[in-house]
């Protein structure tokens, strides 16, 4: 089973939930956690295991070979992403904007734009007993998160093929990188906080997940602050809330130091246990 942990709003506790849930669940069975928040991957700050592997993440971009090029400009014309341009007597490639669609390369009449590998980030794989963590990290300056996310998912299929329970930590928001992490999930957990901002962004996230025909449940973080908006919305929409993580300054402090919460906060462990029971009954 693949479970994606997502949130509309950032900073609602996505990484806290995925790292703590993964570590607690792994006390019972093997878990694979994929950190797909490749712009700001933080799982490794909280889960420190034995390094298993490190790989360079590559994407393919066109490389201009001037000798055969007739400067016809077709490459610039076909690129929908403004990633290749004819400037005077030169063809310039903007790697950060390239989506690796191969159109310019495949359509070039003189074969002057072979696709070559370019580093876009790194992947780290580490292990703690029953828990495999694979973290994707986009290089600073790279703008396209989706190709890096795809690579991390491919790595899991190749290197941990028998993983039967996969947790995926998604980026915040509702745009293309989030879709990439939700579209092959069996179930989605949306984590939010009970505030007007949390509610506003939760609604967008729920619409996104529904648009992809996925089942989902909501976890409330910082339960006790804010108002009843999120609870009322979930009840109106028939969304289950299998766990509520209490608002507690001590939890925030434990998190700030890069430590797992549940080993020192029994309330957190209890809520996570509810969530595990809920997810195992799916």
């Amino acid at each position: 089973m693949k479970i994606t942990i997502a949130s509309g709003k950032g900073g609602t506790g996505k990484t806290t939930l995925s790292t703590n849930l993964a570590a607690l669940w792994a006390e019972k069975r093997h878990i694979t956690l994929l950190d797909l928040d490749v712009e700001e991957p933080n799982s490794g700050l909280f889960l420190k295991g034995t390094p298993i592997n490190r790989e360079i993440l590559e994407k393919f971009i066109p490389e201009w070979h001037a000798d055969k090029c007739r400067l016809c400009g077709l490459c610039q014309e076909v690129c929908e992403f403004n990633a290749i341009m004819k400037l005077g007597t030169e063809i310039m490639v903007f790697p950060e904007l390239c989506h690796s669609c191969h159109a310019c390369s495949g359509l070039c009449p003189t074969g002057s734009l072979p696709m070559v590998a370019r580093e876009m980030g790194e992947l780290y794989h580490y292990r703690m007993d029953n828990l495999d963590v694979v973290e994707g990290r986009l290089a600073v300056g790279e703008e396209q998160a989706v190709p890096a996310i795809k690579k991390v998912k491919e790595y899991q299929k190749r290197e941990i093929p028998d993983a039967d329970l996969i947790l995926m930590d998604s980026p915040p928001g509702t745009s293309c990188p989030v879709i990439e992490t939700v579209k092959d999930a069996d179930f989605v957990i949306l984590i939010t906080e009970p505030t007007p901002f949390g509610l506003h962004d939760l609604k967008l996230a729920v619409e996104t997940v529904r648009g992809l025909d996925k089942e989902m449940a909501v976890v409330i973080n910082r339960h006790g602050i804010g108002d009843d908006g999120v609870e009322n919305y979930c009840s109106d929409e028939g969304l289950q809330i299998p766990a509520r993580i209490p608002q507690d300054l001590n939890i925030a402090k434990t998190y700030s130091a890069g430590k797992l919460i549940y080993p020192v906060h029994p309330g957190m462990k209890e809520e996570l246990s509810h969530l595990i029971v809920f997810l195992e009954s799916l």
Partner: protein
Amino acid sequence: MKEIVVLSGKGGTGKTSLTASFALLAGSSAVVADCDVDASDMHLLMGPVVKQKELFYSGKEAVIDQEACISCSRCLEVCRFDAVLSDGTHFEIEPVSCEGCGYCARVCPADAISMKPSLAGELYISEVRSGAHMVHARLGIGAENSGKLVARVKNEAKTLATRDSKALVLVDGSPGIGCPVVSSLSGADYIVIVTEPTISGWHDLKRLRELLGKFRLPSGCVINKADLNDEYADKIRKYLEEEKMDMLGTLPYDENFTAAMVQGKTILEEPFSESETAENVRGIWQKIQAAVGWSKE
């Protein structure tokens, strides 16, 4: 015209609440732009009255005309995004996977594939209760190209500022370091980073700083929830010194931020306006004005 962009790297550090406070302090001298189009929450604190609204199309999406399709499978062969679904005779595009590159349409020998503009979201121009204009947007579900919508929101705000002779554009940016953030940086004069003294706040601050360095943009930093962790607060202070970034001020961990939000207000308003936090926010805004070389008067 000066342009200030507020960013955070990590989400949930209080970026939007602070930007809304700055917007109130700037009043009608500024045009406000909510470029956090994925989670556009700023309007919840600004009381916008929408004056103008339009649909925003960005990018394209392939559509196969089933009548014209000759099932040659060329589209399937060239697509790098697994967006062509086929059983061997019937071919169709899965919109969620299609990135709109148009390669399939160009190679289709039967001209059966057309590229349709895809709806990326809605754009609004509103009047807000600080007396300013605010440009904001709602991203369509799963839309591509949020970076382009960000650019559009910013450009609209700049156009308004020019038209109305406003000296300041105040931008609430996205978390992260990807395309929406990069898109919000073009034309900026000063970057305000709102961070928190946590291991992830610290980690994400460094990545964001590295990105800003590539654009050679001056920046300053606000440490929110500064009393949460002394060790990381100190690390951040030292880092700001090393990197020659402005230390704009600190805010205490204060649940009144949330209490104010529930009331649709900023921390600068009653009954929170006399708190230490509110006082610090006003001080931070003074420093930002000095750093940018702009003042309301």
